[in-house]
């Protein structure tokens, strides 16, 4: 563990790694600042171009984007009253009133510093928990991993509070689609309908780009206009920015609490930065001696919101890196990138590829520090990017998406698949099917089949192996509890909501 960390630290002086962190930071900030885009699209667009790169260098790019997008999203939230990402919503409550008072710079300073410290806190927690997770994962046997995949799917659907049945159906279709093509478990090709194109299965890159980048492009281009509304950007000078940056330390308790909330909520698959953001803000307000100040341009509100939404980064990496269970869209794309680079997420990653794990951890830290400096230095200029109309951005997203899709395998039919996936993704969004569960099912489908088959080989065909091992029983209890609560919530919506509140 220590050797891998030292090796990763030594790598940080490599010019390629420095360039990768800078690229990731640049993409993360720009896509975070432009409302409606965000880190998922940034990661989706860059993913195919990293094919053929050294996997470690590629991971620094992804880590850079993960670590920076929600920090970038604070800029339009504060200066234009438009959150760059959904995790920045609460930042508008106090950030924008501060801007209207001519204290935009102070709010930017608060947000950038709180974001940076929140991320550092969560990454330290992640690094501290890795040895524990490594020991824990050695207890897991094939049936436990099978249930873990099922739990991951159910948890994402459950925590995102979308329709449970639609989420599970989409996840199931994702697993079924993953069965198409060559099966390394059985050494045969299946469900290819005689098509040579499907021999290796459905390619992950066109599917992900179609679902996330192109279908999103269809949504925001059909809506038209700019998402952010123009406003007089008033930063109030560098002195104010520095004042805000230092003022964070006057709100240590809120910063600490927000960081803990962000880390814990981030670790729950499906919950993510938006939930952490709201929970931290409301907790800070309830605990404050002056709750009436929240929403009027109170610096503590900005600290509470921004520390939590960035602290989710460390938390959300935990289930992805340790168990291979991605908790949100960013992590799904990271998993897809692992697959693209031939890295098996989960146990193999934690036991054999700690260099990758540390590359991500250090990449997030490096990018966060860089972003904090960039935002402190150029917040007002960055806010202007939010005002670029989507009709100018759309063709570039389309071009980069399709070139990226083609670049991976040089197969023109992959481009067609991406365009078809965009249409399917658009309809699924409109019909309320969560795309993320379909992609999680697709990414984890191979693992589910491998572990399911291994389990039956171990037990010589006895299905009781899935219900008798201690870890499996714990996971089953978690699955049954979530499904039970979901049924209860559906049958008694009013009561369940009041209890949730």
């Amino acid at each position: 563990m220590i050797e891998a960390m030292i090796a990763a630290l030594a790598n940080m002086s490599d010019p390629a790694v420095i360039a990768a962190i800078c690229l990731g930071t640049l993409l993360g900030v720009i896509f975070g600042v432009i409302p409606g885009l965000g880190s998922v699209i940034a990661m989706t667009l860059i993913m195919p171009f990293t094919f053929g790169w050294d996997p470690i260098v590629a991971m620094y790019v992804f880590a850079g984007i993960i670590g920076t997008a929600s920090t970038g999203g604070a800029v339009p939230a504060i200066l234009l009253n438009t959150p760059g990402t959904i995790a920045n919503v609460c930042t508008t409550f106090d950030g924008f009133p501060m801007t209207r008072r001519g204290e935009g710079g102070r709010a930017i300073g608060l947000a950038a510093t709180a974001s940076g410290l929140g991320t550092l806190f969560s990454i330290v927690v992640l690094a501290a928990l890795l040895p524990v997770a490594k020991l824990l994962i050695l207890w897991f046997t094939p049936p436990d991993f099978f249930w873990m995949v099922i739990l991951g799917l159910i948890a994402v659907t459950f925590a995102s509070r979308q329709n449970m049945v639609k989420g599970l159906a989409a996840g199931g279709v994702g697993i079924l689609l993953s069965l198409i093509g060559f099966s390394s478990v059985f050494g045969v090709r299946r469900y290819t309908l005689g098509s040579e194109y499907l021999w290796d299965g459905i390619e992950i890159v066109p599917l992900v780009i179609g679902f996330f980048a192109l279908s999103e492009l269809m949504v925001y281009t059909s809506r038209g206009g700019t998402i952010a509304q123009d406003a007089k950007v008033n930063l109030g000078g560098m002195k104010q920015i520095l004042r805000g940056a230092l003022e964070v330390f006057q709100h240590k308790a809120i910063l600490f609490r927000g960081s803990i909330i962000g880390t814990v909520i981030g670790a729950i698959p499906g919950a993510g930065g938006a939930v952490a953001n709201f929970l931290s803000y409301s907790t800070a307000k309830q605990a404050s001696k002056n709750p009436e100040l929240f929403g009027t341009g109170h610096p503590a509100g900005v600290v509470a919101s921004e520390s939590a939404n960035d602290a989710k980064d460390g938390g959300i990496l935990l289930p992805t890196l340790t168990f291979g269970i991605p908790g949100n869209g960013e992590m799904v794309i990271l998993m897809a990138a692992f697959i693209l680079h031939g890295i098996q997420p989960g146990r193999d990653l934690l036991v054999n590829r700690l260099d990758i794990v540390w590359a991500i951890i250090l990449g997030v830290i490096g990018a966060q520090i860089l972003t904090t400096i960039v935002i402190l230095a150029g917040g007002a200029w960055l806010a202007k990017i939010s005002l670029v109309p989507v009709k100018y951005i759309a063709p570039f997203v389309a071009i980069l998406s399709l070139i990226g899709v083609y670049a991976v395998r040089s197969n023109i039919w992959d481009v067609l698949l991406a365009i078809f996936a965009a249409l399917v993704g658009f309809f699924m969004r409109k019909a309320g099917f969560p795309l993320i569960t379909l992609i999680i099912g697709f990414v984890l489908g191979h693992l589910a089949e491998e572990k399911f088959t291994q389990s039956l080989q171990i037990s010589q065909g006895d299905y009781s192996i899935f219900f008798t091992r201690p870890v499996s029983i714990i996971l089953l209890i978690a699955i049954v509890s979530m499904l039970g609560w979901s049924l209860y919530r559906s049958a008694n919506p009013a009561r369940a909501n009041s209890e949730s509140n």
Partner: protein
Amino acid sequence: MSKYKLNGINLLTEFFLMAIALSIVLGAIAYEGKQQLVAWVIGFPTIGFLFILIVAELAPGLLKFTRAFGVSEDDAPEQNNAAQMESGTWRRVGIVYGWLVGYFISIFLLGFYLATPIFLIAFLAIESKLKLSRASSVMLVALIPCFIVFRLILDIPLWPGILPKFIPGIVGGGSIPPLT
């Protein structure tokens, strides 16, 4: 109860997903032993979930029964406005998708190097309402660095199109990979 209005988008999507699930579950019959297992273990519940959703969509009167399976009344066709976009928005979606399909067709025929500048100028001029001269300038400013990065630095070979070979590796001469 308000007037029944079928939500076509929900239904279409559910039938499409059902078709995928059914084809894999039924296709599994062709394989022997354990190769069928995951397709069936995952496929049958998936088909069940999709069936419940379709029933809820077609017969909102059954919602009180399907509610216990997690289909809330918010999904009732007459109450769900999320998927009912205005016809103007649908037109916009169709136009945007048309641009994507058009871009693919032009890539297929002409290759990335010819199709991309044409697509960019056309999109910026028609959709973004930029003057042709400005659209051309934007295209040059945007695509020259892209060409340098993708072609000269990263050396990513891009599809040259199916036209007869004109400039090797750039325009024409692409061989179509087998589909079936």
